[in-house]
């Protein structure tokens, strides 16, 4: 169908995008890899010696690296569990007959559109604050001691905030998937004598599997790089209690000006993200065939 002429025109039209993305990703990435082998600190101008894998050695053996990895994983897994379970439950609920479904949908979606710095600060001050926060007030109402969420369980608090941001996303996608479920299939199952619970287990959940996978993979990509929420609430603290990998890299490079060490950390983050990305790309790639 396509002639030679239209092919060369097409190549011409794609090239700006390809070249830009190439420059955007590959060139800086190559530079990061290069820096990661140098002894390069912005505070110590002069020669940048080649130090081999020493930056990686320091970064990987730094106790805060292991903590950051652990925190990153807890953060990602915690938010995933909350948003996927909550998202499925909410999607099932919102798919039921009700009055004002459109409005409820809008209410549920809203947090996704709130910028991370706003949601983190609102939660930090107006809800989690041990003196003036609403949660402290409710605790007192019930005769409990107010709890200082952000200093006593900083990571949990951040998981809560991030889950609030991402629950709408999971709900929206799962609800969309739910509404594409053929109602005749449900009716057939009903005719076959399946109870509401069996229908959920045997029809709804299998139908949602693909979307749940997509939700998990996409959220993982974003959750691996949670940053702003930590920056404006705990600054990674107390100590390193809520430091994740991106925050550690940020601290190393822009607070301690250790370009070499920060670069090594960045590459470690890239490798971790790629492991997830490979799975995600396979899924989307399969979808492309269909």
């Amino acid at each position: 169908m396509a002639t030679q002429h239209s092919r060369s025109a097409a190549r011409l039209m794609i090239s700006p995008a390809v070249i830009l993305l190439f420059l955007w990703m590959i060139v800086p990435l190559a530079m990061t890899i290069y820096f990661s082998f140098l002894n390069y600190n912005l505070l110590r101008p002069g020669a940048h010696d080649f130090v081999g894998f020493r930056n990686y050695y320091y970064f990987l053996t730094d106790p805060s690296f292991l903590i950051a990895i652990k925190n990153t994983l807890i953060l990602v897994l915690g938010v995933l569990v909350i948003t996927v379970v909550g998202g499925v439950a909410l999607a099932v609920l919102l798919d039921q007959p009700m009055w004002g479904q459109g409005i409820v949908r809008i209410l549920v979606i809203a947090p996704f559109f709130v910028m991370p710095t706003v949601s983190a600060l609102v939660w930090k001050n107006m809800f989690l604050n041990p003196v003036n926060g609403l949660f402290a007030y409710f605790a007192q109402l019930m005769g409990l001691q107010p709890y200082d969420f952000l200093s006593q369980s900083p990571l949990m608090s951040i998981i809560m905030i991030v889950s609030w941001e991402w629950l709408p996303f999971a709900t929206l996608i799962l609800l969309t998937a739910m509404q594409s479920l053929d109602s005749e299939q449900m009716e057939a199952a009903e005719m076959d004598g399946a109870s509401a619970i069996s229908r959920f287990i045997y029809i709804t959940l299998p139908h949602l599997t693909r979307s749940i996978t997509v939700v998990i993979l996409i959220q993982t990509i974003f959750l691996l790089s949670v940053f702003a929420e930590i920056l404006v609430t705990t600054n990674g603290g107390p100590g390193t209690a809520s430091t994740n990998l991106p925050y550690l890299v940020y601290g190393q490079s822009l607070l301690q000006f250790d370009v070499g060490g920060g670069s090594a950390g960045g590459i470690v983050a890239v490798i971790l993200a790629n492991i997830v990305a490979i799975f995600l790309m396979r899924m989307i790639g399969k979808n492309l065939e269909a």
Partner: protein
Amino acid sequence: MARAVTPARKLGFTIASWTVGLVIFFPILWTFITSFKSEGDAVAIPPLFVNFHWTLENYVLVNQRSDYLLHFWNSVVISVGSTFLALVIAIPAAWAMAFVPGKRTKDVLMWMLSTKMMPAVGVLIPIYLMFKNTGLLDTLTGLVIIMTLINLPILIWMLYTYFKEIPGEILEAARMDGADLKSEVLYILTPMAIPGIASTMLLNIILAWNEAFWTLMLTSSQAAPLTQFIASYSSPEGLFYAKLSAASTMAIAPILILGWFSQKQLVRGLTFGAVK
């Protein structure tokens, strides 16, 4: 579903859903209400919901503290500017891949997607140093460039899936009718793709508006968008809840409204067409 649902059941679901919906929405609602309180009322115990003295003073104070309009304008320039720039690059690319697919089209698409998966910290240092050396730090130009590049893959993907839905027979019909490439693009493709392009644009503006890694890293004051403007409230300074609320309300209101219009496209855009 033609079947009758008993009103009692429907009522039950309605109450349950509205309750959950309101709980999830509450932080936003509470922020909105608090923005009209005096600082004293904002921390009153028990909390005040409606029976307080409503005031607009926080909005005035926030504007005096830092120039809201400047940051708002920066956000608009960055999100809208980067979206338009990215569209100019993405439309031809998506068009070519959708209508003149080659052997490697799929690989190119996947590669573009893979750039989106790369964590920003992996390239933070070179970008930061480049910006520092070229004087692009804390400039709108710099941020527009970064946002364009960040969202380019999503844009190309969304447009690609929209273009793919235009049936090939229509293009063949146009060719039979004597349309050359230019008229085909001008009279057939573009008008048919406009709904898709519009919703892609909307989503992209939202994503760029809320982006909070590069905006925080690469700006400090002059080019700071609203994400950075709000971040400046991260260290407490006496009683500031009402002011924080006012600032937050102003930062999220425009995009919240846009976002509600783009729910459907959101799903598609954020899943790269995997869920429609």
